[in-house]
């Protein structure tokens, strides 16, 4: 599976890419939403795992942009802060519904999510 990982904390990106690669995925790590959108267009990933609160383009804006480019791309947001619920509520009002996982996420749970088709994920 081709996956893009986006987070402004390098250690989180590096470890997630390492974990996903170890499971046989083709993972690319990026530190901001803008480059993620650019790379998504070229790489056409199956899934994107992105942080919500990032400088510049936040995770939700990134997710919306990628959704428009690649309707089939699986989008998983993760966040360490409650403030992201405001951003999510705003997105929901605009008709977007995203699943957001709370940091810290157990990597097994993330891998399981990626291996389960979206409509049966239940959350």
């Amino acid at each position, binding site marked *: 599976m081709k996956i893009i990982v986006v987070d*402004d*904390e390098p*250690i*989180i990106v590096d*470890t*997630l890419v*390492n*974990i996903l690669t*170890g499971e046989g995925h083709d993972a690319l790590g990026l530190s901001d939403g803008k480059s993620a959108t650019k790379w998504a267009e070229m790489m056409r990933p199956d899934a994107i795992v992105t942080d919500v*609160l*990032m*400088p510049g383009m936040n995770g939700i804006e990134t997710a919306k942009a990628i959704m428009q480019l690649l309707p089939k791309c699986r989008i998983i947001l*993760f966040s*360490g*802060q*409650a*403030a992201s619920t405001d951003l999510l509520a705003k997105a929901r009002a605009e008709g977007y519904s995203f699943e957001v996982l*709370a*940091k*810290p*996420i*157990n*990597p*097994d749970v993330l891998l399981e999510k990626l291996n389960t088709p979206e409509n049966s994920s239940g959350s």
Partner: protein
Amino acid sequence: MKQVFKDRPRAPERGAAVNPDMAALQEAEKARRLLAAIVESSDDAIASKDLNGVITSWNKSAERLFGYTTEEMVGQPVTLIIPPELHADEPQILAKIRAGERIEHFETVRVAKDGHLIDVSLTISPVRDEKGTIIGAAKIVRDITEHKKIERALRTTEKLAAAGRLAATVAHEINNPLEAVTNLVYLAKRDLQDAQKVGAYLELASRELDRVAHIARQTLGFYRDTSTPVPFDVTQTLDDLVFLYETRFQTRKIKVVKQYDQGVAVTALAGEIRQAFSNLITNSIDAMSAGGTLVIRAARSHSWDSARLPGVRITILDTGSGIPPQHKAHIFQPFFTTKADIGTGLGLWITRNIVEKHGGTIRVRSKAGLKEHGTAFSIFLTLEGRLAGTEKDDQADASSLRSSKRMVVA
């Protein structure tokens, strides 16, 4: 002069004016009765005492406020309504009166007949006889219990709001390193055979755990309410705050410049001073959404008003959007905010309260132009942080704090 306002003055003589002296006397008597009536019907408690601190008059409102009747009070020492731990204030008050000084809006505590404590604001003026000799003092006592209650409620509200904001920051600062550690532990388990890799993962994990531990130490100590002033290192406190808001500086591309004198320390309520600094720093962060520079200065200095009063000046300067001139007069008022979504409008009000409670001063300079913009808040703290202590809930504690400073300035 033992005069009781309640006692009705002798009715003035009616009839044809006898001589000019008599007429003047009658005028004076009329004026005296009018004054007595005003005093008697005042909503504020008004009393007078002689230079020995013995009560000489006591109006209706004083009866209502303290529960003592005029008959009970006149002739009694004023210390009857002063809590025992504040008795030492009285000679100081009398000394000021003897010196012809007026004491204005002195906030303190008095005790009613039934023993309950009343937060009051006192205005005490010397009373002179016709020759100008000071013979006693007139005292206006305003009950500020309600006012104090509201003030305390506001402070609690702000504390809760600040705790909420802090919780959001802490969640972010702690969950990110935890995410990293979770991943690193997963990787260490996966690569168990490769000792070198495992070593590297554990090294990184240990560094992330240090981060979590540091943040937890900082923030859990944040609101610890110390009721006694302690000597603490101002620059260390500022450094801790810079560390706490590190990610916010990074994500908003804010450059932090520290200009510290060596060993800047004050004696104060460390947690509160820290909150005051924190409020100013977070305001600066909010004002620099498009990046900028935050200068944090801590220097040994002296008071703006008195060059002889040594202390510490802390300046938090940003290149943010600045305060528009029309807002300048309101920024220290409670509930004034331009950040409707995230602000409570209490941050600067609290900050000023904390600073002034410590006998310090806060000043602001700001420019909100297109080209030139930015804000600088300066706090001056005296080395010994004399406490005005008007906010502790514990009355006894509050009054002892009060007596320590208020008398110095009253």
